[in-house]
C-alpha cells in the first residue's frame, strides 16, 4: 500500500508496517503517534473500550485530514489507521505516521493530524469500568453519565 494509507481495521495495528509505507528515499524523519487504552480515565478504573466507527465516512475524513496536512506540509507522506472493536488496556487504538524530509514538519503534521482526528472523524468509544458500568465517552461534556450494564 502507498501513502496516504488510511484505514479502519478490526485487527491489531502494526506500526512497523505503517512506517514502511511512509518511508521512501526522500524521507529523513518520521513522527508517529499512538493512542493506547489506559486503565484510568476521569479518575475511574477502565477495564476496556469498545470502539465503533461509521466506517466509510471515518475513512473519508481520515483521508481528508491526510490531504489537508499534505497540502500544508508539501512532501509529507501520511498513514492513519484506527482500530475498532473491543480493546483491552494497553491496546493501540489509533496510529498516525507522518514522514518528511525534515523533522519539524513531520512532528508538526503528526500533532495536527491527531488533533483533527479527535474532532472530526466519526468514531465513538464506550468505556467499561470496574464494577460493570459503562458509558459512551462524550468529550463535549465535562463529565459523562454512566449506565449500568
Amino acid at each position, binding site marked *: 500500500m502507498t501513502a496516504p494509507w488510511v484505514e479502519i481495521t478490526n485487527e491489531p495495528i502494526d506500526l512497523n508496517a505503517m512506517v514502511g509505507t511512509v518511508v521512501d528515499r526522500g524521507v529523513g524523519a518520521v513522527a508517529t503517534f499512538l*493512542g493506547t487504552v489506559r486503565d484510568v480515565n476521569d479518575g475511574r478504573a477502565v477495564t476496556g473500550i469498545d*470502539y*465503533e*466507527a*461509521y466506517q*466509510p*465516512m*471515518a475513512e*473519508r475524513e481520515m483521508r481528508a485530514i491526510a490531504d489537508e496536512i499534505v497540502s500544508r506540509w508539501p512532501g509529507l507522506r501520511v498513514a492513519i489507521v*484506527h482500530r475498532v472493536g473491543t480493546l483491552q488496556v494497553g491496546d493501540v*487504538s*489509533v496510529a498516525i505516521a507522518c514522514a518528511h524530509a525534515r523533522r519539524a514538519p513531520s512532528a508538526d503534521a503528526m500533532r495536527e493530524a*491527531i488533533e483533527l*482526528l*479527535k*474532532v*472530526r*472523524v*466519526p*468514531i*465513538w*468509544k*464506550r468505556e467499561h469500568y470496574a464494577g460493570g458500568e459503562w458509558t*459512551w*465517552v*462524550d*468529550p*463535549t*461534556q465535562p463529565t459523562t453519565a454512566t449506565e449500568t450494564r
Partner: protein
Amino acid sequence: MPVPVLVFASYADAFGARIVSVPVETPCTVADIVEAMRTLKGGERLPGKPVVAVNQSYATCDVAVQDGDEVALIPPVAGG
C-alpha cells in the same frame, strides 16, 4: 417516502436500532429529518443540535436531502 437514517453509539442505544426509518417527505432538509426524529421513541434523547452527515459529509441543517441520499446522525465523536 421515509428516509433511512444511520445512527451510532449512544444514538443507536437511544433508538434501539442502527437504522431508523424517519417519516418525512423527500425532498426535505436536514432540519426536517432531525425534527421528525424527535417525535420517535428515543428521539427525546437527542441533543439540541445533533450533528448530521449527508452522503458521508457533515451537513448544516439547511442542506437538502433527496431519495437515495445516505443520512447519518453523528454523536459527539471520541476517536483516538
